């Protein structure tokens, strides 16, 4: 009770501070050349109240205070403590409170960390950020109050959705939100810098750090979500092109492009329009993602309880921000600088620009695939679903030039460069093609496209690998990230091409056998845990190479709420994953068994970690 009370009024106080900050920033903007100390302390106070409110919600979950509606709907006394805490953000209200926490945290850090930038710029950034913050305060208090009372107090809660009871997922939302919501500071800052016309090289190197932070967290957040989907959803895949996954991929694509543009801007002060539009796009796409997920327009594992009022609020708020940014962009930004925009064709900036266009292409494919079904439904009431083939067919062919540009681009110099003494560039290409050919020799499906695809990925792999030994520490972060990307594409390709799958229905005691695999369904056990009962199936699987393994996939029946889930059993080794999952077949004594051997699974995770390590190194590097 007391926690809900304190939490709720902390939110109100935070909102009041937000409103008062509009006034202070207006006053400070007109009258002073120094940042008013009141602004910093009030921003801190706002953060403080949001933290208090957040802690109150966590405590309500920990002590299972069911007079709080959010706790009642999403927790249960039998939950382990870890999942009680993670339940705090495993629901609509709590996750929005987390949004707010990140929003206020970032603006506070921004104010105290930003030096050497005009005071007016800082104040204006605060102003724009406060628009977002106040919007979310209103949204939270009006439509999704995490501290609503229920009376009479229920004795027991509804429980947390079992598929959310997973360690990877417990930390997935906070990490992802740091990335998502972190992009708000880029948005505010770019609007303020555009209005004040101070977009310059020094601004670029200042904002680059913030872009990197968002980018690192977004990358890791997506990775965690993907790992969770692989282990928990039991489909044996790591990316399903589910609308909600796409919604997190779109800001990532925009942010990655932005990161490359900001590098050009930092060095050459080109591409200012790109930077502005991409900064706006990144945050708008994050918001749009929130809208799509929370309004219930999309149906997916991430959709929480739906309420059209919430959807409407975010929609209006989102479009206010969009129109505000369009206005600022066209009103304040005039791009007809005197500088000539003609790049020499063979230069670093050209190659970055080319890959930017590719990224924009990938982004539009994902965007269209995600929202087109909604549009079609409204316009013609037809229901379609866009699946992996759409994305694969449209994206994969364009990866080839994209990978090649990634390999060659960093070799080029700014402004103008020549390809001298670059015999190794060509010889590496030949080696890659030969290698790819050898690997795929016995593979007859889509031979040509796969060979070309693998050669270009191998090419990037070799070029970046070579650079680790040649260019010592010159641009290690970029090299690691690009190396990681080549590894990612290679792992995904090999994973797709060389996985094998057996789907069959078996009874206890039966054996399945084909030329490569022998699956013996030995026995079934039962297990009781605090929050679920499980049926454990024991399998003995041997393959033609003489490898033998025992697997025990589970079917879990969670008690609060009663939901059955399939828990895959996965044996991970360096080179491949063996994955088995069972399902109950309705009204039959058969189990549906799905056994997969997936090569290079581990490398997909490792390469994404490598990509973010590239970002982390770049973030830690001191500019000379």
């Amino acid at each position, binding site marked *: 009770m007391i926690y809900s009370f304190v939490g709720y009024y902390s939110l109100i106080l935070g909102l009041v501070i937000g409103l008062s900050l509009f006034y202070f920033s207006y006053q400070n903007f007109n009258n002073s050349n120094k940042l008013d100390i009141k602004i910093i302390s009030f921003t801190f106070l706002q953060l403080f109240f949001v933290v208090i409110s957040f802690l109150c919600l966590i405590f309500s979950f920990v002590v299972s205070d069911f007079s709080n509606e959010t706790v009642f709907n999403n927790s249960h006394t039998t939950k382990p403590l870890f999942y009680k805490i993670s339940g705090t953000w495993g629901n609509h209200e709590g996750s929005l409170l987390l949004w707010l926490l990140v929003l206020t945290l970032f603006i506070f850090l921004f104010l105290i960390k930003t030096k050497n930038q005009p005071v007016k710029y800082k104040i204006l950034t605060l102003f724009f950020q406060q628009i977002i913050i106040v919007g979310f305060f209103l949204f939270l208090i009006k439509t999704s109050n995490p501290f609503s009372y229920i009376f009479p107090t229920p004795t027991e809660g509804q429980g947390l959705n079992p598929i959310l009871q997973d360690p990877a997922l417990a930390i997935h939302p906070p990490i992802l939100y740091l990335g998502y919501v972190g992009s708000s500071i880029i948005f505010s800052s770019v609007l303020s810098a555009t209005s004040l016309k101070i977009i310059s090289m020094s601004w670029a190197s200042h904002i680059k750090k913030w872009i990197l932070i968002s980018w690192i967290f977004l990358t890791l957040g997506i990775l965690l979500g993907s790992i969770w989907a692989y282990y928990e959803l039991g489909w044996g895949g790591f990316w399903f092109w589910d609308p909600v996954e796409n919604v997190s991929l779109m800001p990532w694509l925009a942010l990655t492009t932005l990161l490359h543009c900001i590098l050009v801007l930092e060095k050459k002060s080109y591409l200012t329009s790109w930077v502005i539009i991409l900064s706006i796009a990144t945050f708008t796409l994050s918001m749009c993602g929130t*809208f799509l997920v929370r309004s219930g327009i999309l149906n997916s594992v991430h959709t929480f309880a739906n309420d059209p009022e919430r959807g*409407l609020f975010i929609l209006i708020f989102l479009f206010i921000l969009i129109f505000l940014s*369009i206005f600022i962009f*066209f009103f304040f930004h005039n791009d007809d600088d005197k500088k000539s925009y003609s790049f020499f064709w063979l230069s670093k900036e050209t190659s970055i620009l080319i890959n930017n266009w590719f990224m924009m292409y990938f982004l539009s494919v994902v965007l269209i695939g995600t929202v087109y079904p909604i549009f079609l*439904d409204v316009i013609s009431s037809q229901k379609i679903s866009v699946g992996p083939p759409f994305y694969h067919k449209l994206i994969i062919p364009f990866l080839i030039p994209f990978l090649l540009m990634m390999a060659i681009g960093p070799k080029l110099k700014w402004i103008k460069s020549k390809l001298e003494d670059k015999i190794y560039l060509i010889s590496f290409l030949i080696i890659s093609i030969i290698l790819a050919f050898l690997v795929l020799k016995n593979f007859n499906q889509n031979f040509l496209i796969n060979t070309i695809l693998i050669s270009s990925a191998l090419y990037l792999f070799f070029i970046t690998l070579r650079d680790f030994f040649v260019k010592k520490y010159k641009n290690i972060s970029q090299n690691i990230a690009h190396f990681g990307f080549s590894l990612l594409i290679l792992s995904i390709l090999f994973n797709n091409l060389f996985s094998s799958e057996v789907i*069959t229905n078996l009874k206890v005691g039966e054996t*399945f056998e084909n030329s490569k695999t022998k699956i013996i369904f030995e026995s079934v056990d039962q297990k009781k845990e605090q929050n679920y009962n499980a049926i454990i199936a024991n399998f003995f699987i041997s393959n033609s190479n003489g490898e033998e393994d025992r697997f025990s996939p589970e079917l879990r029946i969670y008690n609060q709420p009663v939901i059955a889930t399939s828990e895959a059993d996965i044996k991970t080794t360096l080179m491949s994953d063996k994955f088995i999952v069972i399902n109950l077949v309705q009204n039959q004594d*058969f189990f549906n068994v799905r056994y997969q051997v997936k090569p290079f699974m581990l490398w997909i995770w490792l390469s994404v970690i490598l990509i973010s390590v590239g970002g982390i190194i770049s973030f830690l590097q001191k500019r000379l």
Partner: protein
Amino acid sequence: MKNKVLPFSIIIIFGIIFFIFYKSLKDSKIYTPDVNKRKDIPKFNTKEFFSGENMESSSIFELDKIYLLNIWSSWCVPCRQEHSFLMNLNKDNKVIIIGMNYKDNLKSGKNFLKELGNPYKEIFIDSEGTIAIDWGAYGVPESFLIYNNEIIKKYIGPLNQQSIDEINLLIK
């Protein structure tokens, strides 16, 4: 301002997007799959098993006739078990049996039929398993009883005497 067209067109585009999102908020998108509900059979394009010729689903299933669609594969052990039931069912000539050859090697598929007999009036191939997804199949074997282009009943796992009796009862 010299160029007013661009900002205005962008604003109009976003206005339209807003409107569409707004409209789609109005109707609920909650979709619950229901296994037992009668539903129309999906439409698909495929290839004929023996000749490799392209064929459409509409040419396979006609209205007013009863079909049993059986998903099978030569590598699937339970398919072997149920095959004799399918052969017997075919003798009675009450139901037209259609085969969907699932993720199979064509050669071993043909050997399978040579060895055990061919109860199917027509067989089409689903080499990537995508058509089976449209049908809502979990795996092989699985059978669908179809009448008037509607799925009447779905059998997961191999058919046995009990399910054959039920089919005979249903098609009377």
